[in-house]
């Protein structure tokens, strides 16, 4: 794994008693679609939050493009090129769909308080490019027509696409998708896989946490399996499907559900 864009070394996060992420070493290869799977409570989302800087690790460290992220807060990591979506969507309901995507351009635009306050030409120019780019990303996910709609007036599937557009607008190197497929119908899921592939083709590394195995196996080029905070396996989709520990973990999980 020479060209790895993201690495974690003995990464751990404990909340009071329980250890949500336990000494996880993993390495995400650039320009690939990597999927993190695992039963509920395996620590997948916690892992994302650690990478995105929402939580600070209680042990170990995270390196992005070879440099350790240290205690950099979320907004700094976004600027560095780590974008993410949320399980529970989290769109800005006080803005239109377009404006939602435009916020994504925040770390890529420079003009500040005074240019804004006085409407200086610089502000004007940047605003133009911002909204132009925002529209491109909106079209990319196929929501161009809904630019002026309130995001919450869109069906869940499109809301999820919108969050992806917003994340893309930050022009990331690494895109973290937290259960993008949840609550989508078959058709939408196909669209989603298409989109994810296209994003990869744009040279953006994609890491997704996903429960839907068909989706994962369909697009993931590398699969990492977590169980109760620990990495129990990784490999290509086919390798993983044969992996005993994985099956065990999942069966256990299945039983628990039934």
């Amino acid at each position: 794994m020479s060209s790895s864009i993201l690495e974690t070394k003995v990464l751990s996060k404990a909340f009071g008693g329980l250890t949500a992420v336990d000494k996880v070493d993993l390495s995400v290869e650039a320009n690939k679609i990597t999927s993190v799977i695992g039963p509920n409570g395996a620590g997948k989302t916690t892992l994302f939050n650690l990478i995105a800087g929402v939580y600070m690790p209680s042990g170990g460290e995270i390196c992005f493009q070879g440099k350790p992220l240290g205690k950099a807060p979320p907004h700094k990591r976004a600027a560095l090129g780590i974008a993410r979506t949320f399980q529970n969507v989290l769109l800005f309901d006080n803005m239109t769909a377009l404006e939602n995507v435009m916020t994504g351009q925040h770390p890529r635009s420079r003009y500040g308080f005074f240019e804004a306050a006085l409407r200086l030409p610089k502000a004007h120019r940047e605003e133009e490019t911002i909204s132009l780019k925002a529209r491109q990303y909106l079209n990319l996910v196929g929501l161009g027509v809904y630019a002026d709609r309130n995001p919450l007036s869109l069906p869940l599937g499109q809301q999820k696409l919108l969050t992806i557009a917003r994340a893309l607008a930050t022009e990331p190197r690494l895109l973290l998708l937290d259960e993008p497929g949840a609550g989508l119908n078959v058709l939408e899921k196909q669209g989603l896989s298409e989109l994810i592939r296209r994003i990869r083709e744009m040279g953006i590394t994609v890491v997704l946490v996903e429960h839907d195995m068909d989706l994962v196996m369909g697009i993931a080029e590398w699969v990492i399996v977590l169980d109760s905070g620990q990495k129990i396996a990784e490999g290509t989709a086919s390798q993983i499907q044969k992996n005993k520990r994985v099956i065990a973990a999942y069966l256990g999980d299945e039983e628990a559900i039934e």
Partner: protein
Amino acid sequence: MLATFKRHWWSYLAMAAFLLFLILLPTQLLGEKTSILILIGLYSMVTVGLCLLMGYTGQVSLGQAAFFGTGAYLSAILSTRYDLDPWLAMLMAAVATGVFAYIIGYPIFRLRGNYLAMATLGLGIIVWILFKELSQYTGGPDGLGGIPNFSIGGFAFDNKLKRYFLIWSFAVCALLIAQNVVRSRTGRALKAIHGSEAAAMSVGINIAQLKVKIFVLGAVYASLAGSLYAHHLHHISPNSFDFMASVMVITMAAAGGLASIWGAVFGAATITYISQDALVELGKSQPKLAELDVVLYGLILMLVMIFLPKGLFVSLRDAFDSWRQRRARKGPVT
């Protein structure tokens, strides 16, 4: 693009009409109420500052009157005790207040919601107590008098009409700046913080810093308004900057529908008119109701918030928009 352009085009027209209206008000329409119109201008500035913080960024402040007060007192003290030129005094007051807000901003904005509300409330009252207690500077409860007028070269703002235009030109600038900020990436960032702090961070917004920035802006607005207020009334006393004053500003913001720049003006106008004029007139014509003005004020506060949480102005605007849309649907589709 077209849509946004359209919105802006509308607002330019509205702006022009608004300015014309502002000029006509004291000269043609309501000359005898100039002093109230001036107050509306001042409170608009304070309210807009608060709207940026509360309506757009979603951060409560129950201590805005403190900044209004520091602006007023610093300006008054500097120009009376130390014979500074009012303009300079106002500038220094604004800077000092801004720095003050910046210093307390970082610790205080680690708090949210009710806790933030109470912290700002406490802060407001502490400052108010200082106004009363630092008698050697502030003149104590009796206040500070003999505050000079502004003047440029030979031209002194020595009557209400002159001060009206002075104060409203400040107010209009404040409004425009606020509006530009709101329509900029900063504005979107503010809204984003209001919408979801987690998501805001994820798109690279430094929420802590931005909250403080906007807090400072609001404080500076309030401070400028305070200075203008002091040099307008020529006498200030602590009671004008107590907790109820902060509440009044919040009411104005709320009545205008927190997240709306023009709503702030509307709110300031409505509440100022009701509390400074309507209720009094009411009492004059219906002496029985004269004592009830305070009660009515409380009642109005509750009713607006209960039934129009979005505020009078926004509710009216929404009503108007939906009406227009209904008409548009009926009309031919282009």
